[in-house]
């Protein structure tokens, strides 16, 4: 079946611009995660959604970062006033979340380059 998809695959933007990154989880998966993979920080957790519950935003690095999940499915990660240190690969993952031990399935990522 279809896996987690992310768009765009690559995004180049200028410093100070806003960007939106999209994630389509596997159908039926209620849990959705965003991670960031950068040279300086490695792989780090950003935010977690479970169904219609309030998200856990504990990993967001600044208030320029926000995310929403519409209808319990598609999620959008928004970065406002982008900075060069935001350059990274942004990964999305989903899981069935019938149990906290469920496997997270990752998408291919969006590579963001801030000039």
């Amino acid at each position: 079946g279809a896996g987690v998809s992310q768009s765009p695959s690559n995004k180049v933007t200028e410093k100070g611009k806003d960007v939106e990154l999209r994630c389509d989880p596997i159908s039926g998966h209620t849990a959705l995660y965003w991670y960031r993979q950068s040279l300086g920080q490695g792989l780090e957790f950003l935010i977690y959604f479970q169904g219609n519950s309030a998200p856990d935003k504990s990993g967001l690095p600044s208030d320029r970062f926000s995310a929403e999940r519409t209808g319990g499915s598609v999620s959008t990660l928004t970065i406002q006033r982008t900075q060069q240190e935001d350059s990274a690969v942004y990964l999305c993952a989903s899981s069935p979340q019938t149990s906290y031990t469920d496997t997270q399935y990752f998408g291919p990522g969006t590579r963001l380059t801030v000039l």
Partner: protein
Amino acid sequence: AQSVTQLDSQVPVFEEAPVELRCNYSSSVSVYLFWYVQYPNQGLQLLLKYLSGSTLVKGINGFEAEFNKSQTSFHLRKPSVHISDTAEYFCAVSANTGFQKLVFGTGTRLLVSP
């Protein structure tokens, strides 16, 4: 809080040789442990995970890992590697309560040459 240390940033090995990728973790609570693989320009794929029970865990592609609580380690092994195993390998940990918030190590690049 949890942390993961992967001391080897790169491991070169010849095809058909055995390999061990090291992972040590730190946590004040009980944890689940994971190994993920990332092939070039692809997302992460789960190789195996330790939740409870037997400390020897077998995964996909012939990989296995052993959980050692006293040494807080979860080393990944394969008895005979292939060229196609060339990839980045990430060890990760999550607390066994709350949601599965993965904390990753810095990764080990496995380079398999003929």
